[in-house]
């Protein structure tokens, strides 16, 4: 049963992704084609420079012919509908073409390489932050739920609201100003010192560079996580089996982390994944403040250098990651809560 649920959910995710890419292709068709045409022009000019011995007439003929072949190759001469479908298929098969300016760390201009090397960096940052957020959030949330309306509950709920509209990137700026230029404890940005050290020091160096971005994400993130966990756990704590566990003399910590958390696990997992997805869709550009070379930073660079292919690929990949996150969300929920997959409509 679960297998079918999984297959259905995954294929639905893929269909949804294809649909989104199609929408993007329609939306950004004209700008994509303008970039393509100018790239073709540039390529033809580069190639004709190599023909040093040819006569001027030959060069012109060569240029015209070459342009025609390339336009045909990229299907720019086909009707609009076909072009859009062609571009959608290209994007879905990760055939992003070449960037106009940006180069990967190895100096390549293949867009897939540029975006590809940014993915793990973004994932590592946001996943580690999510782990910390959820860990601290669970502890704080349980403490809040133990005494609803108590001093801790009220004060931390207040902080949740105070921080509600605070942009992550602004806090990042403040942290950089204080920790980097004020007390000079951390590097101002990037992922490694240049040149990066070898071996174990490499890892340490990366952690040192990661502390400040992580701190920013965690300081913003834990409050809402703990607030939601408090609301989830609050109901469970009123259940009879908790009271009976307490009556049996089971230590309070075991009641909290064993009995309560176990029961409340499915919604907590959902909420954690949702907050991770929310961070990706909402505060990804904060990477730019730390020049953390992930997907978010790539938006900054692509916008500044007006590199449309990279921008589009970045969007496609971010959307893909987001979509994958939603699928994983449903799959884990179905796994943790057996009731979902039976009645669940995929």
């Amino acid at each position: 049963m679960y297998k079918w649920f999984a297959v259905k959910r995954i294929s639905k995710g893929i269909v949804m992704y294809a649909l989104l890419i199609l929408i993007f292709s329609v939306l950004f068709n004209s700008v994509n084609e303008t970039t393509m045409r100018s790239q073709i022009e540039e390529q033809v000019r580069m190639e004709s420079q190599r023909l040093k011995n040819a006569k001027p007439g030959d060069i012109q003929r060569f240029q015209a012919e070459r342009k025609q072949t390339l336009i045909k190759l990229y299907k720019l001469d086909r009707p609009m509908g076909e072009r859009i479908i062609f571009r959608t298929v290209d994007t879905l098969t990760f055939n992003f073409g070449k960037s106009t300016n940006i180069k990967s760390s190895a100096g390549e201009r293949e867009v897939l390489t540029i975006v590809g090397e940014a993915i793990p960096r973004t994932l590592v940052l946001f996943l580690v932050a999510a782990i910390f957020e959820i860990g601290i959030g669970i502890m704080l949330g349980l403490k809040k739920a133990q005494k609803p309306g108590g001093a801790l509950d009220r004060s931390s709920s207040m902080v949740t609201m105070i921080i509600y509209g605070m942009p992550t990137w602004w806090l990042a700026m403040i942290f950089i100003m204080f920790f980097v230029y004020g007390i000079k404890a951390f590097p101002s940005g990037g992922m490694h010192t240049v040149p990066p050290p070898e071996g174990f020091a490499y890892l340490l160096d990366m952690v040192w560079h990661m502390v400040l971005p992580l701190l920013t994400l965690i300081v913003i993130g834990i409050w809402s996580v703990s607030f939601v966990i408090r609301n989830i756990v609050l109901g469970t704590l009123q259940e009879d089996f908790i009271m009976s566990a307490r009556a049996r003399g089971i230590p309070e910590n075991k009641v909290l982390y064993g009995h309560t958390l176990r029961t409340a696990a499915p919604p907590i997992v959902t909420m954690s994944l949702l907050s991770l997805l929310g961070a990706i869709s909402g505060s990804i550009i904060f990477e730019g403040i730390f020049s953390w070379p992930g997907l978010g930073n790539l938006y900054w660079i692509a916008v500044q250098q007006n590199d449309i292919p990279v921008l589009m690929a970045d969007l496609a990949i971010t959307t893909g990651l987001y979509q994958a996150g939603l699928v994983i969300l449903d799959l884990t929920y179905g796994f943790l809560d057996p009731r979902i997959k039976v009645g669940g409509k995929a």
Partner: protein
Amino acid sequence: MSVKDFGFWLSDFWKDFRKEKSGLIGLGIIVLAILVVILEPFCLTWKDANSKWGDISYWQDNSASAPPAWTNIFKAKKSAVTMRLENGKVEEAELDGGVKMVSTSFDYTFKADEPPLDLVFHCRGTGDNVNVLLSVTRPDGQTIELVQRLESGLNDTDIRLSAENDGREALFAFLKSNDTEENTASISADSIRATNILFAKAQEGMSSKFEPLKGKYTITAQSMLINPETDKFEKPYTVVNGAVSGVLGTDTMKRDVFSGLVAGLKWALLIGLLTSFVSVLIGVMYGIISAYYGGVVDSVMQFVYQIFTSMPVLPILIVVSAVFKPSIWFIIGVMVVFFWTGPVMTVRSMALQIKEETYIEAGKALGASNQRIIWKHMTPLLIPYSFASMALSVPSAIVYESSVSLLGLGDATIVTWGQILHDAMQGSAILNGVWWWIIPPGLLIAILGMAFAFLGFAMDKILHPKLRTR
């Protein structure tokens, strides 16, 4: 729901709301913000900040990156505050041959320990023979003639005379006459700071060490109008350009940060309120229609809903702004496209319950149309919920717009807080520690967000009694 019913509902709501302290704080902040927007002309220290934010010449008389004036409190040596002297004392005299002498004098009391950075005189001149002589009378009785200028071919043109640009020669001469020859041997008119001499005690060693001469300075601008019929000398004012300036200082482009923030407030409110209002209305209606009709309509609408929820908002917003270079209205429109999904699911589940109520059935039996049932019987019950939802989606709209502006993709014709922060990033304010340029805009975004969060959570608590702490 009639107006009278709404009135009753509102007074009921207010009774509950009054008990929510945080909600009242939030409401207070929002009311204050709206008051500031209404009274904007009185709050702006630079009146044309809205239209001339990107105009360098409008801000040219300010000092760049000046900290706020109140930072003087924490300094042992007080810096001079930027001041604009207007309404000078005007004296007119007729000379022989129809020549008119117009002189305007401004009093400036210097009481800081550090000299101002510059002294700038402005006026508007018309005609072919406008002669302006700028002189300063110091508290010790000495008068320095800073500069004399003859302008021609003017047509209500701005004349700008500054001590730093035009008064160097005169001040160097003044320095030489007061200090010993050895002390002045190594310096020239180009290497001095004009105001360091103008506001210093005239004594030996003044070329190397600044001793403030405190007291009343009189800045006089004399203009000789050869032909008073056609030549004019109007609207004179003087700016004493201090090292500290205004409520929140200036940025590297000499703009007054406080004015920018006040000018940006109305846009923040507009973006937040308009986006949340339109999108929540759409979302509530969408949820109701989806639940009421059910069946195929529901399935299709749910599918469309799922397409929208599976898009990451900010990345798409960035790419759309980068490609289409939109105006603020377009950005608001795009945000509405993503924000309407917020209340849909909750409203749909609530509407599914309401749909089964007997009075809906009775309405149907009486032959009420679908529209009548939706508008008269279902929507009024769900409107209160949408208020809380609106308040809670305001902060994210503001944050998204400022994120887009931070990348430099905002509407360039207006001033928003995000754009101020973008400029701050560009001007490497973080590196240079220009905190008065970075902290206030973000803090305002956070405070406004907090106010709406307070309001929204308080409303949610009242309108959704289930969520109350047990």
